[in-house]
């Protein structure tokens, strides 16, 4: 038994769990306020007020919505496949959440305020309990883990999320849900290809799949003011910019957002795959959609816009997460902006665009990036 206890690196495991908990709460808050921001920004675009009654300027609206979701009646329709119906929102949310362990929020070895004092207090407590703990919190990494296959891990997890939609649509036993689920799976399979192929240009530039390392490779500036982000990276800038465009378009399609929100086209399918869902189960689908938006925005920031890199970040390390979140919020705002601006595609247009425009463009871009990579890197 003691060998079992010795084989576990407790400081690492507990530290990772605490970090996951903090990041999770943070992501949940961001998701809640993205929903609020979406409603307010759409209101501005459509020349109305939006939610502004709960708290100052409606800032407590997300909590009111959450309470409402919890206390609504949870209806399980009679004809559904009960187990799969309950399982679907869980299947969609858990992989979406699992991605957050590779989010590179900021640099490694950031000085934690009062970190030395806190670790001293914990170690003293350990001495009183008769244990020797060597906990050092004076410097922390602002990510949970930097795995060697970070980017592939993100793709693996976002790829699993599709089962929630498919199974939810099937288990609801309603024609709108089934059609929504089928449309969604076809759409996500089609655009996943272009999405995964588009990032290869960045991988050729960065030479690694580790998200934290990809950010580190974008250090420095040209001429003292142009940052060496992948979209400004000399000769590789051209394939990286093409990749950025392909990535953005397919990311929007991948998260089922306007103008690619065919799976939940209200005018044809009521609400698509989640038509039959109510109360907290609907809220889980809703949350998963916003967590996925967050994930693709984080990837866009990390791969193309230098992650947490920005001016003076090497002197003041805590500026890292600020820059990072600013860039992520830019993409989230772009999502909302597009929703307020663009009409929905037709289904055949969507499929044609994915297979006949984006996929060949992504393939061509790989060839271009490889040639430039061989010639100039």
């Amino acid at each position: 038994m003691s060998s079992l206890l010795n084989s576990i690196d407790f400081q690492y495991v507990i530290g990772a769990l605490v970090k996951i908990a903090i990041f999770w709460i943070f992501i949940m808050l961001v998701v809640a306020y993205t929903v609020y921001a979406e409603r307010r920004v759409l209101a501005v675009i459509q020349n109305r007020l939006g939610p502004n009654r709960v708290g100052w300027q409606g800032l407590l609206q997300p909590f009111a919505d959450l309470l409402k979701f919890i206390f609504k009646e949870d209806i399980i329709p009679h004809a559904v496949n009960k187990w799969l119906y309950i399982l679907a929102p869980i299947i969609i949310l858990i992989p979406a959440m699992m991605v957050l362990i590779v989010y590179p929020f900021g640099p490694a070895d950031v000085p934690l305020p009062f970190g030395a004092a806190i670790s001293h207090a914990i170690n003293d407590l350990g001495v009183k309990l008769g244990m020797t703990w060597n906990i050092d919190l004076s410097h922390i990494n602002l990510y949970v883990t930097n795995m060697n296959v970070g980017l592939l891990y993100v793709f693996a997890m976002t790829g699993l999320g599709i089962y929630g939609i498919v199974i939810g649509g099937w288990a609801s036993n309603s024609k709108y849900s089934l059609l929504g689920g089928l449309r969604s799976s076809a759409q996500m399979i089609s655009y996943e290809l272009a999405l995964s192929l588009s990032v290869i240009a960045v991988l050729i530039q960065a030479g690694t799949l580790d998200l934290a390392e990809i950010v580190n490779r974008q250090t420095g500036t040209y001429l003292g003011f142009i940052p060496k982000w992948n979209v400004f990276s000399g000769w590789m800038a051209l394939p990286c910019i093409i990749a950025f465009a392909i990535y953005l378009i397919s990311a929007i399609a991948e998260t089922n957002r306007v103008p690619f929100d065919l799976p939940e086209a209200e005018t044809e399918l009521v609400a698509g795959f989640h038509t039959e869902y109510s109360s907290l189960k609907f809220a889980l689908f809703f949350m998963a959609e916003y967590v996925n938006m967050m994930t693709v925005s984080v990837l866009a920031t990390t791969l193309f816009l230098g992650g947490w890199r920005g001016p003076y970040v090497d002197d003041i390390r805590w500026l890292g997460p600020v820059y990072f979140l600013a860039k992520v919020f830019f993409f989230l705002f772009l999502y909302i902006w597009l929703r307020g601006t663009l009409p929905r595609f037709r289904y055949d247009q969507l499929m044609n665009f994915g297979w006949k425009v984006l996929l060949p463009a992504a393939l061509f871009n790989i060839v271009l990036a490889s040639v430039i990579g061989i010639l100039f890197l």
Partner: protein
Amino acid sequence: MEFAHILFMGFAALAVVAAFNVILQRNPIYSAIGLIVVLCSLAAIFLTLGAQFIAAMQIIVYAGAIMVLFVFVIMLLNVREEETRVDKQKYLKWLAAPLFLALLAEVMAVVRYVNLTPQPLASANGTVENIAQGMFTDYVIPFEAASVLILMAIVGSMLLARREQKEDVERIEKALTRQQEEEKYEEEVAA
């Protein structure tokens, strides 16, 4: 007893239970979900062995692409329950027992004769760099051969799909001309 062993036991047990679920369920969608669970637990076992790249690929390719296609087809055809039909190949069931015994003997032989103490892994990690190093130097010919094989499968499936379409077009054209002839004939009769 190390923590990695406990993880291995847990995921191995999950894989076996889910594998039984695949063959014992009557509803094809439950079987498909069982298979997804098997593939995900295998990926977790790869992770405990330090093969990160293989684990990620296992989930992306098998759970994320192939099984999505399976589930998609099951949903599209809306297969509810496995249809209980009379098996045309009745003699096959007599093969089942000997084959099962052979498989059991094989498993027992493996358990009995194979050295169970795990060998220390050569480089101890299946990172992208190591895999790429192997794949594009020592094993580049098998890798390219597999690519050509897959390309052949793609071309073959395209050919099959196109040929059917052509036949369909011919059939529809034939039916249309026949209809026009009939209409002409009716007009003549009416005249």
